[in-house]
């Protein structure tokens, strides 16, 4: 043991802790003035209105042509809509498949945990 003072191992000035960075708390998302249920209600009213109008049209058609006319219009109308839908789904679906595979590949690469159960 010696009385000599122990020389400092590091002659450099003591480290100075940087002042803590105060990050401002994220602002809460702006509160929407109109509650979401109002939009749901409006959409529901709109849907009911459209369905009522279509039903009224069908009733008028029924008066003119009977059930036969209704089924003719239904058949042509739904087939036409389905043809349009098919085109949209074929194009949009192909893009979605690409997006799905890209996401799954990314998740596989990042080793994301299973949260499903």
């Amino acid at each position, binding site marked *: 043991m010696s009385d000599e003072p122990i020389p400092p191992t590091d002659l450099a000035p003591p480290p100075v802790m940087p002042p803590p960075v105060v990050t401002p708390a994220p602002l809460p998302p702006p509160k929407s003035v109109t509650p979401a249920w109002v939009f*749901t209600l409006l959409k529901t009213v709109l849907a009911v209105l459209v369905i009522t109008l279509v039903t009224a049209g069908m009733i008028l058609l029924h008066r003119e042509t009977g059930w036969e006319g209704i089924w003719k219009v239904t*058949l042509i109308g739904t*087939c036409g809509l*389905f043809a349009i839908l098919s085109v949209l789904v074929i194009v949009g*679906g192909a*893009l979605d498949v690409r997006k799905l595979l890209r996401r799954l590949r990314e998740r596989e690469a990042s080793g994301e945990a*299973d949260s*499903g159960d």
Partner: protein
Amino acid sequence: MESALTNATSQTNFTTIDWLIVVVYLLLSVGIAFFVKRYAGNMTNFVSAGRAVGTWLGVATLTGTEMGLITVMYSAQKGFTAGFAAFHIGVIAGVVALIIGLTGFIVVRLREHKVLTIPEYYEKRYGRRTRILGGIMLAFGGLLNMGLFLKVGAMFIVGITGMDPDGNALKVVMVVLLALVLVYTVIGGMISVVITDYIQFVILSIGLLVAGWLAIESVGWDNLFETVRTHKGEAGFNPVAADSSFGFEYVAWMFFLGIVNCALWPTAVARALAMESTASLKQQYTWSSISFAIRMIIPNLLGVCAFVFVITKAPDLQQLFSPADADVEAVNNLYAMPIFLGRILPAGLIGLITAAMIAAFMSTHDSYLLCWSTVITQDIIAPLFKERLDNPTRIKITRILIVLIGLYILYWGLFYTGEEDIWDYMAVTGAIYFTGAFSLLFGGLYWHRASSTGAVLALLVGVTAVFGLGPVQDYVHTYIPGSIAERNITTTDDETIEFEEFNEPDEIAESSYRDMVVDLVKTPFEQAKPWNRNGLEGWTAVVRSQTGQEQKVEVASSWAGEATANAWPSFEPKAGDTVSFYKPLSGARVGLMTIGFTLFVFILGSLIVPDRKQKEAANE
């Protein structure tokens, strides 16, 4: 008659080129399963495609699942037997899907809970015992429901390709189809299901539209309506006509089934839970409403066209499906549509249509297999192990279950010989699950006082839907209110049996109890008035011989002490045998009664025995 059927199917236009188209398509499907295999490593990816499905892919997969070959077959059967009046089923389904898409009724709130299956929600809301019981009910109803899918699908392929229906072709087709579906469902899980659903949508949508167009062209637009008008009258168009096979009760039942198909049926809900957001989910349902309507309407149309074709252009088929001789048994009219398509479609196109239909068959089977196996793994087995099962074990169990369920549907298809209309069979077996599920989901998501006691009661009461099945009614017919107990047959004469005469009872004194309770309970059950002429017409007579042999037959005419049938199916009754009578209840009536009953016990149970903790509903 069987040889006549073989002769009828053999006149198809199906050629080697068509087989080639079908084989190429099937290889493509299996190839996709292998391609996406590496992504199916965890349970969320395996069951919900990583919850990363976009709107348009969602529409494709929902359509691919719900527009199965079984749907095409039973809808065509409805069109064949009921004419254009059957269109109301598709229209109601489309309207209900649209309303659900716009409002998000049930499905959006369910998606927000981030559950994989419906019973998983039961546990969150009502507790573990409800989840396990709900899982058992779901699996029971669902497995019974899909029991005939394989056989009916194979009937289509045999009918359209011209294979021999009397040989082993049906069994071979069933085995091959099942093997294919099992391979790519077991390997790829929901990811391969979603991608193959997309390809199937492409082929199916084009195929159905082209088939519909050619079917109309083959019989003629004007002739189509004229023939239905001549042979079916008003009932061929008006679903609520007096002589219609549907009626208001059936229409109401279809409305409820519309809600079920969109918001309660696990295969459809599985698609909703796989969507990337609730906004995509609502868009998915809104757009899919067109598919929900068309999946019934075009097959209905094919069935109507097949009917017109049989009546006006194919006398050999008319003899097959509606023989003039009452003693000759008619061939199952499920064969009508595939035989019709086999005769009108040109080579090449017929292969494309068959590939489209096989696509529809496979897209439904893969989804159903995945859905029921997941329910058993996640909602029955895993909770029983108190969630100690890890992910790889769960996936392994799910894959084993997929194979076991596949073997079960093969067995059921080969050996079950029920005579029910396919659509009614499916509605009734499905009702075992969905009548209870409606109360649990609707109540749980929108009523804070819903309790686990009410939930368990509703699930148990849902089983009463099984009384809608013909064989079950036969078994318990003496307990059906209004039925007539066994009485001895005194004499017989060809098709007529005589027994002790019925006498009109004396008027019962008025009583408020009788008016309010007894009459209310009796309302859904028809009460016999056998003392009137033809008071038992349309009722079912169950004749039991002295040796214990039993047969049932519809009563053609009756009088106070006698009843006449058109023919005895099994044996000639003798004096000393017994006869009892009952009026079969329609599946629609039993279904509606079960819904009312489950809602009643659910509300009553929740009010009388509330849960101590009102869990999530209080926060909603």
